[in-house]
């Protein structure tokens, strides 16, 4: 059995670790690329949302490399994601691939269902083995998330351009290669050392931008043209509102293991979107309010074209932006988006918030 899964940012690191610790052979699809997107678009329904298309491309590339078991998450709606796997399976079958698709449906209180599926994939490893493998994978995930956070700050202040990213790449490798918790501990020390070697400019008066929106476009650098890096290059500190570990918590863990934080956060959206609207629509709005409260300079809202929950969010954003006096820019992404257009818009937005910040410091507060 050769297991594969879709890409979403660094998600492959813990997944690979998890399956390999259990002795399962893994085929990590090539990182999402133009080819992935082209393949995905060619065989997807025209109006499917972007994550559908790119992940379908991942599967095709992995199947070409010999994968025979696809692990994918499911869902219960209201958004399309919950039905992705069903349609992708049909498409791949019609393309003539032979494979098994294991869909991890959100365990509504039944962590056992999840474990049973894992037992199936891992040919009946013991609960303890699964636990140990899971723990290591989880630690790796947390470390990768932490690394992202640090890099999003460091890029804006590094003295030597590109230094952060080279450290970042090495650090991901170190995390990926660790096979035990001890090794991961050692990797961690090494990473800390390398990070502290990055020379920094003054951290005063930095611009800070928050990223909100649909989770896949936020987490997958290929589809968002590495927006975090691009903003870093423009001297902006980036705070991304969602991390992969959060997503795993929300989607794959039973409710009693979830933290209360998301609920509290959602309250901030109440005047605009008081109820769950699928995906992260309400959360995007709540995050913007929260960023405004923290004094962040501006927010960028990312969504794939036709993304339903984020369209609901987008419709209330003008109001949110006005009331909380925070600039918000929306970026709608699809297979036709171009990097150059995006860069121009980012630069314009950064100029806008920089001017605004300067004016504010002069006491001439004016927005809208």
């Amino acid at each position, binding site marked *: 059995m050769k297991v594969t899964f879709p890409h979403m940012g660094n998600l492959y690191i813990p997944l690979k670790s998890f399956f390999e610790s259990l002795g399962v052979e893994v085929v990590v699809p090539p990182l999402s690329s133009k080819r992935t997107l082209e393949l995905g678009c060619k065989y997807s329904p025209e109006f499917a949302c972007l994550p559908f298309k790119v992940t379908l491309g991942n599967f095709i590339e992995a199947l070409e490399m010999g994968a025979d078991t696809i692990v994918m998450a499911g869902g219960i709606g209201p958004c399309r994601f919950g039905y992705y796997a069903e349609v992708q399976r049909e498409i791949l079958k019609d393309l003539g691939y032979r494979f098994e698709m294991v869909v991890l449906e959100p365990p509504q209180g039944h962590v056992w269902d999840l474990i049973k599926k894992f037992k199936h994939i891992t040919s009946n490893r013991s609960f303890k083995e699964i636990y140990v493998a899971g723990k290591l994978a989880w630690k790796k995930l947390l470390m990768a998330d932490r690394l992202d956070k640090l890099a999003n700050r460091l890029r804006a202040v590094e003295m030597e351009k590109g230094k952060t990213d080279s450290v970042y790449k090495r650090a991901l490798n170190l995390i990926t290669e660790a096979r035990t918790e001890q090794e991961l501990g050692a990797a961690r020390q090494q990473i800390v050392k390398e990070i502290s070697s990055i020379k920094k400019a003054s951290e005063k008066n930095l611009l800070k931008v928050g990223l909100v929106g649909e989770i896949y476009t936020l987490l997958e650098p290929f589809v968002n043209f590495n927006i975090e890096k691009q903003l870093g290059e423009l001297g902006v500190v980036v705070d991304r509102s969602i991390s992969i570990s959060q997503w795993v918590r929300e989607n794959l863990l039973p409710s009693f293991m979830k933290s209360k934080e998301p609920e509290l956060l959602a309250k901030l959206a109440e005047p605009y979107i008081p109820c769950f609207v699928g995906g992260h629509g309400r959360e995007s709005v709540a995050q913007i309010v929260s960023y405004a409260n923290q004094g962040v300079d501006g927010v960028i809202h990312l969504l794939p074209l036709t993304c339903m929950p984020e*369209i609901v969010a*987008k419709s209330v954003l003008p109001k949110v932006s006005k009331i909380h006096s925070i600039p918000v820019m929306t970026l709608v992404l699809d297979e036709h988006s171009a990097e150059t257009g995006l860069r121009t818009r980012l630069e314009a937005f950064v100029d806008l918030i920089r001017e605004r910040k300067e004016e504010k410091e002069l006491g001439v507060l004016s927005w809208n």
Partner: protein
Amino acid sequence: MRIGIPRALFYYLYYPFWKTFFEALGHQVILSNPTNKKILKDGLELAVDDACLPVKVFHGHVVDLKDKVDALYIPRIISIEPKEFICPKFLGLPDMIKSSIPDLPPIIDSDLSIYKNKRGFYEHAKSIGTKLGHTEKLTARAFRTALKKLNSYKKSQIIEERLPLDSGQKSFFEDYQSKNQNYGESALKVLLLGHPYNIYDNYISMNIIGKLQRYGVKVITPEIIPTQNLSAGSRYLNKKLFWTLGKNLIGSAYYYMDGGQPIDGIIHLASFGCGPDSIVGELLERKIARSRPVPFIRINIDEHSGEEGFNTRLEAFLDLIEGGSRR
């Protein structure tokens, strides 16, 4: 009080209930005009760019009504079947309206959800009653009357195969008599699939039903197919579809294709950029491509669709199935 109901989205499914309910509470129900050029224009102008056509049109209907009424009824429709949804945009509909349209009258935006259990329908009525200041007793009575009306309406809709089509200003619910479809045994039968608010809104659908009927085609839609047949059809799915409208659509198609009854063609009228349609349409097309028992066409509509091209495609399709049925 004058309560405004936009002639859009779930109007085509629930108007019999809404009208009876509000009137039983002593209110006057005002409907917006049938979709027209101005309504479409207002909708396009005010709604968020990325919304689908039906949601934009809904915005236009709100504009059409808002200065003529004391309150607007824009429920938050979460779920109309246990463990199913409609679409995220229905979940956020009142929020979108409130943010996008200025100077609105008070909005009755009570949640309607029977996701957990069927009592949700009554809870919805109760919440409206409370908002309007009625006693629970009166509300409960109005609810029962309205529910009876809705159920008997739906039943006769299926038995008489009556499509919920308005005629002019008159609502399909008031214009009760004239919609019987009378066709001989030899008439072509076409299964028309799509969201009710797309296929029954003559303006949005470019009068597809009228056109088909003029050609002597008998039009069958999910709304006139008995529920047990719908669910028989949707059982073929590997995983339950969590969108009620999508489930009905797939259920209808599978029922007819797998020999429920002979059918000459299937038309899927989909909204451009509609999330559920993109998934459901794909399942449908794959199913048809694999078994190919029926001619099939998908027509995507949005605000830019031209009527000429639409007619040409429709006619070509009819030629195709006519040829097929003669052979």
